[in-house]
């Protein structure tokens, strides 16, 4: 049966690719991208359009992080945005760096950076106590 795409000269053949790091990274970029469409664009709309950086204070941040809803939102945003961004940087770097040892080191250093950032900022959000900032 000729499908529409075959009539247009494009045929589709599905291939099964074994699960490996690069395939998972590829899938992660698409899936986290969909999550970030809601989380990151939502964050920009809420914090930078509905609210404005020009009247942002630490008290405002404390008021938001006084609720677990905002803490979870920001933790999710953190957990998707940092790996998505760093993996994007890795993809860009690998287009220009052709030395295999250098690529290996870039991967290791970027992975350490992702883990360190997630731990540092995740700990800050989780442990943040709003009481000193509330009047």
């Amino acid at each position, binding site marked *: 049966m000729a*499908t*529409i*795409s075959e009539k*247009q000269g*494009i045929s*589709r053949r599905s291939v099964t690719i074994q699960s490996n790091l690069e395939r998972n990274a590829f899938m992660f970029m*698409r899936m986290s*991208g*969909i999550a*970030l*469409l809601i989380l*990151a*664009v939502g964050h*920009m709309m809420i914090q*930078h*359009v509905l609210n*404005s*950086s*020009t*009247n*942002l*204070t*630490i008290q405002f*941040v*404390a008021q938001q*992080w006084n609720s677990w809803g905002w803490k979870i939102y920001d933790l999710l945003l*953190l957990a998707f*945005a*940092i790996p998505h*961004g*760093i993996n*994007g*940087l890795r993809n*860009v770097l690998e*287009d*220009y760096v*052709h030395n295999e040892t250098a690529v290996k080191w870039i991967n290791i250093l970027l992975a350490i950076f992702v883990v360190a*950032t997630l731990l*540092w*900022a995740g*700990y*800050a*959000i989780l*442990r*943040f106590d709003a009481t*000193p*900032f509330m009047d």
Partner: protein
Amino acid sequence: MASLTLTIREAVRYRGRSGQISWIAHRISGLAILAFLVIHVWDTANAFFAPNIYAWSLALFKNPFFALGEVGVMAAILYHAMNGIRITILDFKPEWWIYQGRSAIIVWVMFFALFIPIAILMFSGLAAHCGEMAAVGDSCWRLPSLSEFPPSMFE
């Protein structure tokens, strides 16, 4: 390094039309967002680790130089989000590759339709802030010093 020079030269020379422009815009917007994001995340963590440094950075980021950067980040995020969805859809729907060019134009139209009103809103917020600062004899262009935010302010 040689391949980076080659990329920049070929980006100008190569006539890849809409797909190539989208590819370049996606890369540049992604790298711009990442540069901002890393600073933003480590800065925001200071709300917990060093609240006075965080309060100082919030004041600093109200300067029009940073406000302009914020509008730039907004543009980068909106384009990257729209174009990222296009890439994802086309990755899983090869049948739609014939719409490559058309979809790239739809992304640009959606981007400008969202970004222009948002940029106007953001700039009017900045103008209001500068007006308020001027009304009390201060200037929004003045860079606040860290000494204005002593660690004792949150004790």
